[in-house]
């Protein structure tokens, strides 16, 4: 028996979210008195993989062929399936992100294993297996029971945190038996992000709404984000109007994010917006309307004109950092 965690390969590097899912898998394994093991696809140095041992992973299977440096949903599913069978895995843990969403549902069908996505805590019970997740875009929490012998869950990023548990992590190479000739979809081009912090990974986010009044007023917001080391985001009308790129749109129909700190500037706090940000650890709202619903979900609020407050906040952060 074992708990398997899928470790996404970020161009040969691990990120905090990898350690979070590893921590989670280790805790689940602990409650079941079995080892937590990991699978990594594509090229990654030993020294990097070994770090998973700090979070309780005792063995990592690496599929080092560089074919696996690019995600192919169907192929990756086949490989993880073979690992599950070989290692006698009973629970598979994925991150609830793009890559987890790409593979986990397919694996569920492949293995006839019940899948619950976006779980937010450890199982409430292992036998029967019951776990909680957010539903209705964060408006409620549900308990879900998985009835199949094999189980798959994906962990909501930033919901569990890091839990150190040092173990030596043995690295084993795994040779899957798959055909690499399937050409039904292949990457023909790439466009890398410009420098800057990716919204989905960001620890801090500064976000602007219609209260910013126009795209020409974004300078002070960007300046604040830069000083804080934050990513920038926006509400839907802002991206619909083309003031900002739709990549920045957060909310129910945009990106769903869970940073440690979310600063909402000139955003009213409509339920569809809140659906995308309510998992943030701390929310600061800056708005000139004391009755704006954003203050109902915010931890800290400032009432006033964004144009005047932003530079002051930037100065305060500079002072804090000792600049």
């Amino acid at each position, binding site marked *: 028996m074992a708990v398997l965690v899928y470790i996404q390969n970020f161009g040969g590097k691990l990120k905090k979210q990898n350690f979070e899912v590893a921590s989670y898998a280790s805790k689940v394994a602990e409650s079941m008195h079995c080892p937590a093991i990991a699978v990594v696809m594509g090229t990654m140095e030993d020294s990097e993989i070994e770090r998973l041992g700090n979070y309780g992973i005792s063995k990592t299977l690496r599929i080092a062929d560089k074919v696996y440096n690019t995600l192919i949903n169907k192929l990756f599913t086949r490989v993880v399936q073979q690992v599950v069978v070989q290692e006698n895995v009973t629970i598979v843990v994925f991150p609830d992100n793009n890559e987890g969403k790409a593979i986990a549902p397919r694996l569920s069908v492949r293995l006839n294993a019940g899948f619950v*996505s976006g779980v937010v805590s450890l199982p409430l019970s292992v036998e029967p297996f019951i776990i909680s997740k957010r539903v209705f875009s964060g408006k409620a929490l549900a308990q879900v029971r998985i009835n199949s012998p094999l189980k798959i869950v994906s962990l909501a990023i930033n919901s569990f945190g890091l839990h150190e548990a040092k173990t030596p992590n043995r690295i084993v190479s795994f040779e899957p038996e798959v055909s690499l000739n399937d050409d039904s979809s292949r990457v023909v081009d790439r466009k890398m992000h410009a420098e800057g912090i990716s919204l989905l990974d960001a620890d801090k986010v500064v976000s602007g709404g219609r209260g910013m009044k126009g795209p020409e007023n974004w300078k002070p917001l960007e300046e604040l984000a830069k000083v804080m080391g934050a990513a920038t985001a926006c509400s839907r009308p802002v991206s619909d109007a083309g003031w900002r790129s739709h990549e920045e749109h957060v909310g129910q129909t945009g990106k769903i994010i869970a940073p440690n700190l979310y600063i909402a500037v000139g955003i009213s706090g409509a339920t569809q917006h809140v659906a995308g940000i309510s998992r943030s650890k701390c929310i600061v709202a800056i708005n000139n309307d004391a009755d704006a619903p954003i203050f109902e979900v915010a931890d800290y609020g400032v009432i006033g004109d964004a144009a005047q407050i932003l530079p002051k906040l930037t100065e*305060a952060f500079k002072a804090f950092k000792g600049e």
Partner: protein
Amino acid sequence: MKLLVCISNVPDTTTKVKFTDNQTKFDSIGVQWIINPWDELALTRAVDLKEESNNPVSEVLVVNVGSAETEPTLRKCLAIGADKAIRIDSDTKDAFQTAKQIAAMAQKEAFDFIICGIESGDYNSSSVGGMVAEFLDTASISSVSDIRFEGGKAIVERDADAGKEYLQVDGTAVLIVQKGFAQEPKIPNMRGIMMARQKPLEVISAVDANALTEYTGFRLPEPKAKVKMVSPDQMKELVNFLSTEAKVL
């Protein structure tokens, strides 16, 4: 090319959710139902592709697994521009059971692309698209934010961690799409609404399919502590709170 868009029927995004039967069932009394917003974007783009003449898309079908109550939502899809709607007559138990129904139907017709929204606004599973693909043993591309055609071949744009990737697709595939695939949903016009009445809405019976998961209870999140107000002249104090009280810096 023939496209199939999978449609989830979900409560309006402003719904105040409630539960009944000892907090084990969603209370649908008084709820307005809508096309799942991501499915609406998927359908919008599918219809646009059909209406533009410079690509090979010629037909757009929509499918929903659900009871007769979901038919107004399917009619709206027809009004937006789908050619035909199919309702697979079954209550939905979980994503696995739903995907199996869709796959069984899709197997009988040759669709070039099956398009699903990235998640459903009710149970937020992000599962049906990937599951349909695996049942059909076909390629799937997730986090799709655009599509274009080059010499009859589809080039699909997806979000990867480091940026955008463009995939050429040969043969059928399931596309799991997000914002960007379309920017804003199409609003049906009068003509579309009139035409929708004449368009076929076929009801087919479900196949045998079990569920693997089961919702056993619901609760509302704990109410949040009251917001702490900070004066606009005290931004140093705010930063101090964030550092020492909220501990997020």
